[in-house]
């Protein structure tokens, strides 16, 4: 090969981009290798810069429009709030990890960590005190400025109110006098009616004048005082940190596994003595029972793990696991049946009505059906042999297989099975006749024909189907989790919707981006697989 190495590297990168479907970056690579720079720059501008600007424009539009819409869960969050909610979720997960490691620490490491936390704690408490003082300072400042702004207006308002009240009493007296005259026939009825009407009008006008001042006061009050806000946020942040450190202290001392284990062991030793000291039958029995209980406690503590709260990363992991279980179920059903349908017209005719009826059914309906069915299968999941079996396998028992996982996965499978099935059938039935003729001339057996000709030639379409299936599965899964509150991203969204804290809305939007990004990556992954099995492309191995 006379090719120079940079050329080789370049084509390797380009091939990689081609296989993964990121051909947009093709000109960037070519530009980096100085290939027709003008042409590359032109295509970068057209297909990279302009789209980026467009996306930026959309984000900008979001930023501008969002605060104008007030909802009962607060304003629609702007991108920066969503971003900070992402950071908050990240800190939360970091803290959970720290707590877990604290829980499992033992010996000197534990003592050392505890000391570190204590010093940190004292530092933070000092900081909190200063911050609190600034906060009170700011509060008083704010109050003062508020008073200076509002007091003159309030004075005016009070004056106006008094004036209005006076005018009203004057008017009602004159109306009373008028009514007496009307009753005695000295004045016409219409005059009285006119006077009442006039009084109402004047009253409304007076109220309106008062409202102008009230609105002014309201506006001043709702105007945020920046320094106070920041002071408040600072205090909150440090208080939050202190709260976390308190938790850490607990996990490093009383709630620590090794400490608890130690205590229980001590008790066990004491219990041994008690058992030896006991003299009558009743006491012996009692002490022996306590001993066994303590023994069990020790055993349990030795293997106890930290019960971590579901952070968004754990939810993502859970969702990915569920979607893959469902997807594999769908593939395991769809591919053999699809091949059967593609090979045999009768099988196709048999399955067509089933496919056409069940394909359009909503995932929500499937979810409810599977929830009922799975529930009936496993009335008591704790003792059911199916789950005990999974629990007994070393690696799988950490995956947390439970009925919620199974019915979510079944729902995913049920919705994802159709595209894969239809595409496989299509791929198998549209095999080149020539290839089948070759198989006939060579007298290949059924198995050879299946593995050497039918499956390879239908693989690209099978993978196209699987790709759609995975996309559908991911979409369905999030809905299913939200509805059934089985662990996963869907549950994260649902919980946020339910708890309505100040960051809930931002968290939901954050989850929306996470779901979208993961869906995109899954799709890309399937595209790569699809390209790797496509035989019509030259050398797709990178």
């Amino acid at each position: 090969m006379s090719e120079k190495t940079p050329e080789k590297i370049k084509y390797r990168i380009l091939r990689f981009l081609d296989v993964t479907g990121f051909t947009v970056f093709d000109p960037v690579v070519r530009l980096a290798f100085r290939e027709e720079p003008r042409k590359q720059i032109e295509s970068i501008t057209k297909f990279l810069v302009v789209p980026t600007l467009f996306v930026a424009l959309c984000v900008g539009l979001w930023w501008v429009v969002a605060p104008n819409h007030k909802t009962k869960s607060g304003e629609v969050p702007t991108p920066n709030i969503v971003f900070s909610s992402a950071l908050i979720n990240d800190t939360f997960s970091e803290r959970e990890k720290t707590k877990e490691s604290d829980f499992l620490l033992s010996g000197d490491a534990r003592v050392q960590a505890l000391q570190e936390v204590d010093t940190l704690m004292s530092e933070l408490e000092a900081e909190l005190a200063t911050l609190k003082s600034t906060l009170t300072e700011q509060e008083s400042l704010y109050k003062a400025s508020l008073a200076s702004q509002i007091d003159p207006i309030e004075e005016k308002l009070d004056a106006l109110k008094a004036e209005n009240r006076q005018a009203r009493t004057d008017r009602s007296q004159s109306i009373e006098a008028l009514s007496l005259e009307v009753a005695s026939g000295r004045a016409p009825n219409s005059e009285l009616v006119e006077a009442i009407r006039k009084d109402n009008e004047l009253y409304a006008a007076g109220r309106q004048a008062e409202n102008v001042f009230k609105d002014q006061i309201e506006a001043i009050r709702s105007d945020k005082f920046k320094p106070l806000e920041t002071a408040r946020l600072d205090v909150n942040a440090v208080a939050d940190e202190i709260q976390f450190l308190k938790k850490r202290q607990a996990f490093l001392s009383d709630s620590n596994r090794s400490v608890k284990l130690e205590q229980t062991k001590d008790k066990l030793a004491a219990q041994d003595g008690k058992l030896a000291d006991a003299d009558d039958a009743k006491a012996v029995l009692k002490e022996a029972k306590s001993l066994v209980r303590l023994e069990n406690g020790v055993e349990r503590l030795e293997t106890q793990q930290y019960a971590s709260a579901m952070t968004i990363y754990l939810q993502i992991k859970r969702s990915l696991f569920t979607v893959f279980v469902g997807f594999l179920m769908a593939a395991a059903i769809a591919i053999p049946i699809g091949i059967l349908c593609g090979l045999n017209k009768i099988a196709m005719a048999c399955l067509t009505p089933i496919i056409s009826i069940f394909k359009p059914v909503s995932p929500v309906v499937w979810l409810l059906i599977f929830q009922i069915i799975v529930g009936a299968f496993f009335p008591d999941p704790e003792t059911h042999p199916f789950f005990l079996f999974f629990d007994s396998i070393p690696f799988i028992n950490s995956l947390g297989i439970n009925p919620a996982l199974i019915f979510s996965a079944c729902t995913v499978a049920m919705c994802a099975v159709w595209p894969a099935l239809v595409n496989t059938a299509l791929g198998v039935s549209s095999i080149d006749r020539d290839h089948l003729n070759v198989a006939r001339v060579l007298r290949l057996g059924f198995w050879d024909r299946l593995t050497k000709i039918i499956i390879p030639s239908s693989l690209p379409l099978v993978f196209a189907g699987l790709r759609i299936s995975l996309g559908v599965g991911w979409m369905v899964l999030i809905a299913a989790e939200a509805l059934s509150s089985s662990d996963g991203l869907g549950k994260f969204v649902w919980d946020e919707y339910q708890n309505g804290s100040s960051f809930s809305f931002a968290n939901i939007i954050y989850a929306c981006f996470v779901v979208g990004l993961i869906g995109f990556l899954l799709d890309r992954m399937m595209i790569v697989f699809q390209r790797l099995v496509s035989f019509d492309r030259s050398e797709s191995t990178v």
Partner: protein
Amino acid sequence: MSDERFLEISQVVKAYPNPFGEDIAVVDGFDLKIRKGEVISVIGHSGCGKSTVLTMVAGLNEITSGGIIVDGKEVSEPGPDRAVVFQAPCLLPWMTAYENVMLGVNRSYHHEPKSVRKQIVEYALSAVGLAEAMSKRPHEMSGGMQQRVGIARAIALKPKVLLLDEPFGRLDSLTRMELQDVILELLDRERITTMIITHDPDEAVFMSDRICMMTNGPGARVGELMDIEFERPRDRKEILGTDQFFEYRRRLIQFLDECEHEKEIRRELKAGPQATKDEPPSQTSEPNPESKTESRLAV
């Protein structure tokens, strides 16, 4: 079993159902006996049913009536004793040249050890000049090379009969000549009974021991048989210059022209009194104008 009638095609009829009238017999009463080791070309206008006859011998196409016997056994289904080289190479694109040939060898020689099978495949591929390209995939090869793999796949099975269905139809004329030489060389060495479908008179004369000229369809049958008495092994340059070559070719072309003429007469007759009645589907009866010019150009 006499070697005179190694492959016997007797009174073979192929009829396709016609929903608007009587069945249309594309081939009607085709009769041909082929000696063992003979190379026979079947020539005729496009659409006359040459390929139909070949696919029936291969067992890929059902025989309506009549029978085909190969080495004493009647043909009822396809099998590796009758290897076919199709017009398109029909290679499996996800396999290398080696694997494509091995596919059939694995099946036919499953009782042989792996090393023997490997030898067979390597021999077949080097016999067609692809010793260097065994690990290439079809999309990395030219059309000519792909067709060579197709030929290697066929001969690797050591078939009793080799059936070539316009094997060079899709190749340019230089590649075509190359492949003709490859096949002739192979046949000289292996002495396989061979049936070549072609519409190129030069190719037919150059390659075969006997030429079977088919009349035009529908109802095509053997029109004329012509022995080619060139010595084997043949050399293209020597043969192409001889008067005998031109004589053979003249007779072929004359026959093909007569067929065409006869067809026109038939059509005129039909167009006369009963023009609207029972018109057979056009694809079988209409002469293909392209094929006509093609055969003339090839002269």
